[in-house]
């Protein structure tokens, strides 16, 4: 299954090049390019429409990046706009809201990365140590469930749980921690924490799968040897299980660091409101509100380009760091 990792690997028949000159110097079935194509009309029919789809829906939007260097107005079409150089980027860097959005994005991104990774590893470790096989299976099954429901539903759940008469306020009041119910959703300082908790709740079980799978591949003899040496279960987890999945952890960390700025806007848009907006505005939401909401298309595109550039830089830094500490790097 792992033979053909990347579909770009050249394999089998050579492409167009050298077709005229070779004169049977190649292996037998060398028909001319056109002859082979004529025999593959069905294949062409089954792929060409989708390749055209890829060009239209995936490549043309990238060409749209030129808008960031123009004053794009819909009525002018794509080509008839005035070139303005880096004006939109300068505007962007002069907007205080942009820095707030950047701070919120990185802040919530980091919190999600740290707590998401820790909770997933911890959960996988615990699950791996479980002895009661039946209960272990049931727990794992239940733990995936929140991953498959939409953020709209999760946002609903979160606001219900945290509402004034909701269970969390109920619990904290009856334990005497709060004097009266607290309106969680209206506390700007709690917003990052709420988003992070929601994310941990939604994705811990799912993210743990990959660590759990890595743990299943550890040689049982290591544990046997440790047992003979008298290592406790906790020490085995620390000295065998965790080091064995180190490479997986690092690869996943590198990938998520690249995505630190691509945290999206769903959570913030669905959980946020006017009171907490200072803590809730993130880059994508900013691009959505300004770029589409206020018809500043060029400005919005500039935000998108900024995001892509930062994301590439982040992944290069993370990759270089992993190379330095001598661990599995991504490329």
């Amino acid at each position, binding site marked *: *299954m*792992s033979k053909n*990792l990347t*579909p*770009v690997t050249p394999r*089998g028949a050579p*492409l167009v090049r050298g077709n005229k000159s070779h004169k049977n110097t190649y292996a037998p079935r060398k028909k001319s390019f056109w002859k*082979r194509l004529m025999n*593959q009309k*069905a*294949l062409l029919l*089954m*792929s060409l429409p*989708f*390749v055209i*789809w*890829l060009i*239209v*829906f*995936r490549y*043309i*939007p*990238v060409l*749209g990046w030129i*808008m960031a260097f123009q004053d794009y107005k819909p009525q002018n079409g794509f080509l008839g706009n005035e070139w303005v150089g880096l004006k939109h980027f300068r505007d962007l860097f002069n907007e205080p809201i942009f820095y707030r959005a950047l701070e919120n994005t990185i802040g919530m991104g980091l919190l999600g990365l740290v707590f998401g990774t820790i909770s997933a590893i911890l959960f996988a470790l*615990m699950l791996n*140590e*479980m*002895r009661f096989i039946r*209960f272990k299976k049931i*727990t794992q*099954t*239940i*733990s995936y469930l929140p991953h*498959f*429901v*939409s953020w*709209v*539903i999760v*946002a*609903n*759940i979160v*606001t*219900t749980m945290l509402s004034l*008469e*909701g269970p969390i306020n*109920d619990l904290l009041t009856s334990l005497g921690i709060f004097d009266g119910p607290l309106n969680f959703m209206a506390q700007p300082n709690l917003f990052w924490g709420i988003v992070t908790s929601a994310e941990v*709740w939604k994705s811990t079980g799912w993210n743990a*799968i990959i660590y759990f*799978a890595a743990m299943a591949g550890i040689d049982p003899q290591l544990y046997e040897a440790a047992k003979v040496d008298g290592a406790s279960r906790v020490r085995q987890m620390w000295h065998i299980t965790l080091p064995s999945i180190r490479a997986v952890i690092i690869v996943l960390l590198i990938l998520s660091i690249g995505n630190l700025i691509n945290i999206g806007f769903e959570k913030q848009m669905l959980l946020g*409101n*006017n*009171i907490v907006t200072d803590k809730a505005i993130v880059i994508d939401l900013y*691009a959505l509100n300004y*770029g*589409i909401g206020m018809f500043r*298309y060029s400005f919005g595109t500039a935000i*998108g380009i900024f*995001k*892509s550039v930062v994301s590439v830089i982040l992944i290069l830094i993370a990759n270089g760091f992993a190379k330095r500490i001598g661990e599995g790097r991504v490329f």
Partner: protein
Amino acid sequence: MKKQKVTAFDIVLLVFMVGVVVVTLYPFLNILAISLNDATDTTRGGLHIYPREFTWANYSQIFGGNDRLLSAFGMSVLRTVVGTITGILASTMLAYTLSRRDFVFNNLFSFILVITMFISGGLIPEFLLIRELGLMNNFLVYILPLLLNAFNVIVIRSFMDNIPMALTESAKIDGANDFTIFWKIVIPLSLPVIATVSLFLAVGQWNNWFDTYLYARGNANLSTLQFELMKILDNTQLSSGDITSGNAEYVAGQTNPQSIQMAITIIATVPILMVYPFLQRYFVTGLTLGAVKS
């Protein structure tokens, strides 16, 4: 390995895991209880995992009283069915041609596909493209932009790579053309991966609310359950987003918006629970396959 004694450590783990299960399931049960409870009674608070005054009223509001929610439910189902079928047809066809090493455009098309995993135009250019293509407020906006996904195609293609050549070769000698081979041999042999990808496509379609928000807000007929839920959520929160419809329209009758909101949440969750056992069986394979890829 010999059977070991249950130690204190095991008990601690067990308690922790029970905690995880409770924290995961409690919110769903709580919402189920509210949705099945009398709306006026709910406002007293203190509901946990079973309803105090049982009623179906909140659900009959959705399926009886409110045309809009019923139509949103229908649209959610429709987009999920159509989107999944078209998506899986497109992905398998492209994947098949790319698994054929003798296909003259194999390398070129593979390259075009793989590049899309690394580049993205971003929100605004995609929005403008959809508008230029005239897809705004059009049902096709749920289908066309989501037709293909490079990752899915690659997962299917690696599965097809493992189908023995002998099968397809012999069919070819019997005079079958490439399309017949695809339809009669490759598809039936690829059912496990097709099941996995279909389920993922279906969940993605069912859960999507953002494309309705961005592209289809202007056409009430295209509203989906997730989008209706998002609007109610938006209104119950303190925000004054740009969506103007108040919750008043839902209040007609004896239920309150919160109870309706919970009932919609349950209706939107149940289909996920229904495909869940199937998902469960397949997705681990799909995921490990993906892990090998990256």
